[in-house]
Structure formats: structure tokens, C-alpha cells
């Protein structure tokens, strides 16, 4: 089922002269893992910002479940429908790992209402990405880059979003954790029917992808198979 669709999207940063993305079209389905590859500066992260609702495209349209992103509440979209794993984690540094996750659940108005139940769910998610309870109760500032990356992954999954978007999610992980994270991501798509879009340079990530999309100089080089 088509979950996200990009139609003729072009994007230029404020004050910039050239388009970072040039007339891109693509569609993404639930139950699949998409890998977006390309050189640095090709426009991969910009594309992720647009489909995660963090920014809005100048030309063209993006549709989520058939609804134009321009017409939906993008805050609510980010809070409920999409989980973003940032390359630079973007966590609340003065808060604990567990609090970062329960806060995300609060913002998304999660189905889990009780405070302790939310906390238990946060421990559960963190445990899934290899963070034990003691580490979960530490402030983000005191965690290593790899641990922060895993907290970012757990946070993205905390509100059970339909779309999971990740920017280099395994960039700071060791081989063992990378494997387990890739298994989680694969299961999200293939068992939980989520749409997973990953920007990556890793061959291990592209190996689990159902479709690989290549961007070069703001243009799609290889169209996904379903277009």
C-alpha cells in the first residue's frame, strides 16, 4: 500500500541559487525498507527533512496516505505518524535516555497513558536496542555516541509510527549492535508493516533494503522498481 508519495519536488535553501533537489518523484509503500544512497551533498538529508515534515518543499508536493503535506498539521504528523532517527541524534542532553522516550510518547499522545507504564515501555524499547536499565537512567550527556544513536532509534519507535525515517542510523554502532538494529528495522517493515526509509552509505543497510534509490546532484538516478 502506497504510504508516501513525492511528486515533482524541487527544493532550494533560503538565499541559495541552485536547487538541492530537482524535480524528484518517488513513492514509498508500507512493509518495505528503502535505502537512499548518494554522495555527500547530493540532497539525501534534504529529502528526509521534507518527507519527515521538518521542512516544506518550494515546488511539487508530498503526500502522506493520499493527503497533501501542505494541508496537514505537520507537528501532528511528526508527533504521531513518523519516527525520525537523526544522524546527530538530536536528543535532550540534560535528560535521561528513558525520559527522552517517555517525552516522545507524551508528545504523540501515546495509547499508553499511565506514567509507570510509559516508563516501562521506554525501558523495553531501550533494551531492544541494547541499552540496559542503568544506562537508560543516565543523562544523554553521559552516554557514548553509539549509545545516543541507539536511544535515538528507540525514541523514533516509541510512538509506533507508520513511517520510520533514518539518517545514517548505524553510523556510530559497533558490528554487533548494527546487526541487531538492522534486524529491528527489517522486522519493523516486514513484520509490523511499517514504511522504513534510510539514508545510508552502508552496504549492510542496502543489503536489507527492498528498494535502493540513488540521488546524485539533487536528481534520482535509479528509479525505484515500482515507478
Amino acid at each position, binding site marked *: 500500500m502506497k504510504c508516501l508519495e513525492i511528486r515533482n519536488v524541487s527544493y532550494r535553501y533560503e538565499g541559495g541559487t541552485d536547487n538541492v533537489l530537482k524535480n524528484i518523484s518517488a513513492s514509498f509503500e508500507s512493509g518495505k525498507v528503502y535505502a537512499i544512497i548518494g554522495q555527500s551533498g547530493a540532497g539525501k538529508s534534504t529529502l528526509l*527533512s521534507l518527507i519527515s515534515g*521538518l*521542512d516544506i518543499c518550494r515546488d511539487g508536493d508530498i503526500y502522506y496516505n493520499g493527503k497533501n503535506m501542505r494541508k496537514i498539521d505537520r*507537528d*501532528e*504528523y*511528526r*508527533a*504521531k505518524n513518523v519516527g*525520525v532517527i*537523526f*544522524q*546527530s541524534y*538530536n*536528543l*535532550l*542532553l*540534560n*535528560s535521561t535516555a528513558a*525520559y527522552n522516550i517517555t*517525552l*516522545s510518547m*507524551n*508528545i*504523540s499522545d501515546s495509547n499508553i497513558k499511565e506514567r509507570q507504564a510509559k516508563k516501562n515501555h521506554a525501558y523495553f524499547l531501550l533494551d531492544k536496542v541494547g541499552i540496559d536499565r542503568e544506562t537508560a537512567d543516565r543523562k544523554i550527556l553521559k552516554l557514548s555516541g553509539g549509545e545516543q544513536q541507539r536511544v535515538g532509534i528507540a*525514541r523514533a519507535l516509541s510512538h509506533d509510527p507508520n513511517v520510520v525515517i533514518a539518517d545514517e542510523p548505524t553510523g556510530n554502532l559497533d558490528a554487533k549492535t548494527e546487526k541487531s538494529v538492522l534486524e529491528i528495522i527489517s522486522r519493523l517493515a516486514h513484520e509490523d508493516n511499517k514504511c522504513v526509509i534510510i539514508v545510508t552509505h552502508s552496504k549492510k543497510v542496502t543489503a536489507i533494503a527492498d528498494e535502493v534509490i540513488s540521488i546524485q546532484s539533487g536528481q534520482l538516478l535509479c528509479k525505484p522498481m515500482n515507478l
Partner: protein
Amino acid sequence: MYVIRHALLNLGKNKGRNILLGVIIFAVITAAFVTLAIFNTTGIVIQETRYTLGRMVRVAPRQIVYGEASVSFEQFLSFAESEYVHEADIRESRTSINGIEAIYYLKQPEMLTNFEAELRSRGLPDTYSVVSEELSFENVTGNLENLHNLSLTFLVIVLILGAFIMVLLSAISIRERKYEVGVLRAMGMKKKKVALGLWIEIITITCICFALGMGAGTMLSQPISDVIMTGQADSINVNISVNAITVMGILGISILLASITGFISVSWINKCEPIKILTERN
């Protein structure tokens, strides 16, 4: 609900900045409290003094005119039966021109004209004056008026300076928290909730400072007033009291200060797009 909890937790997480903000708010509230307490109390004392002196009417001959009929002691006593008189103090006096000192306390200061008209109709000669003590008001309350005006000027300075410092601190503080706001917005928290959280933080700090400032202000008002009044000629002992007007005034000032900072936060957040904040930081 989680916004309130998040804001309260944030108070502890950013201790250094919040303590600095709290100290400044506390200083402003305490200074405003002291000046407002002095301003209100002196205002009340001035008003009461004016009222008391305005009611106090002295009836005495302007000069000795030989051959003119003078007013007898009994006549002075009969004037005290006027409906305008609350009480009278009539006594023989060696210092007064006619040997009688007659003071009438009217029910209201504005009854003076009617009272004089009544006395004239009852035979009080034109050579006698009917004068209220209001004329000596300035001599009695001159220093008090100075203190009253000084406290008002100081209050205005404190408020302007306090507001200026608060604006400056808020602007610095909000820039420090740019990243945090960016993360919350990226997670999907709405602008109004982010702004509400920041506002709750500042309101909480202000409430704590309000309570502390009230205590400190109550303790400091009287000694400060005494120091100011010391050394002034004809000084009056003013008992500085904290009344509802003062408390309401300080509450208003506290809300004003919190609103200024809140307004700055909200206007800044309204301009912020999460992607810009996070991109700039990264």
C-alpha cells in the same frame, strides 16, 4: 499535563541559569515591594493627616478691636451644638488674643463653609476668623510628601531597570535553549506547548521569588523608611504596613515581569523552524 511536568523538571536541570534569573527577579520584587509599601503607607498617612487637619477648625479673633463685642465662652460652647460639629475643645487660654481657645472637629472637612455660615448667622462677628488647620498641612507632612514622591520615582526606576534586565536575560536564556526548542519541535511538540512550557518555568521562578520578595520586603520596608526619615526636621514616625493594595501591586508587577519574558519566548519560538535550529547546530 506533561508540559507542566516537563517545565518543572527543566527548572532543576538548568539550575545555574534559573538561580541567576531568580536572584534578579527577587531583587526587583523586593525593591518594588519596599518602595510600594512606603509609597502606599505614606500616601495613606498623608491622606489621613489632611483629613484630620481639614476637620479641625479654629475660631479666633483676627485682631483686638476695641469697642467691638467679643464672643463669650458660653457662645463658643453653643457653637459646638452645630450639626456639623463632631466634637469641640474649648478652653481658656492665656496665649490667645481673647483668652479663649476654641477648636471644633467637623464631621467632614468639606462642611467648613456651611459651618462658618451658621456661626455668622448665630452672631459670630466678621472680626473672627473660622479657619481649618489644612493650611498648616504642608508644614506637618512636607517630609512625608518627599518620601512619598521619592518612593514613586524609585519604583518607576526599579520597574524600568528590572524590565530591561529581564528582557536581556530572557533573550540570552532563550538563545541558550535554542537546541532544546529545536529538538522538541522536531519531535512534534506544538509551538504553543513549547512556549507554555517556557512560560510555566518563568512563572514558577517568579512565584518563588514573589514569596521570598514579600518576606524580605516586609522585613526591609520599616528600617529603610526609618533611615530615609532620620535627620529630617519635623519627622513623623511612619509605621510601614503591608496591605492588600501593596500585595496586589507586587503581584501585578510580578505578572508583568513574567509576561515580558514570556512574550519574548513566544515571539522567538514563533520565528523558529526546527530544521533551521538543528541544521545550524549540526
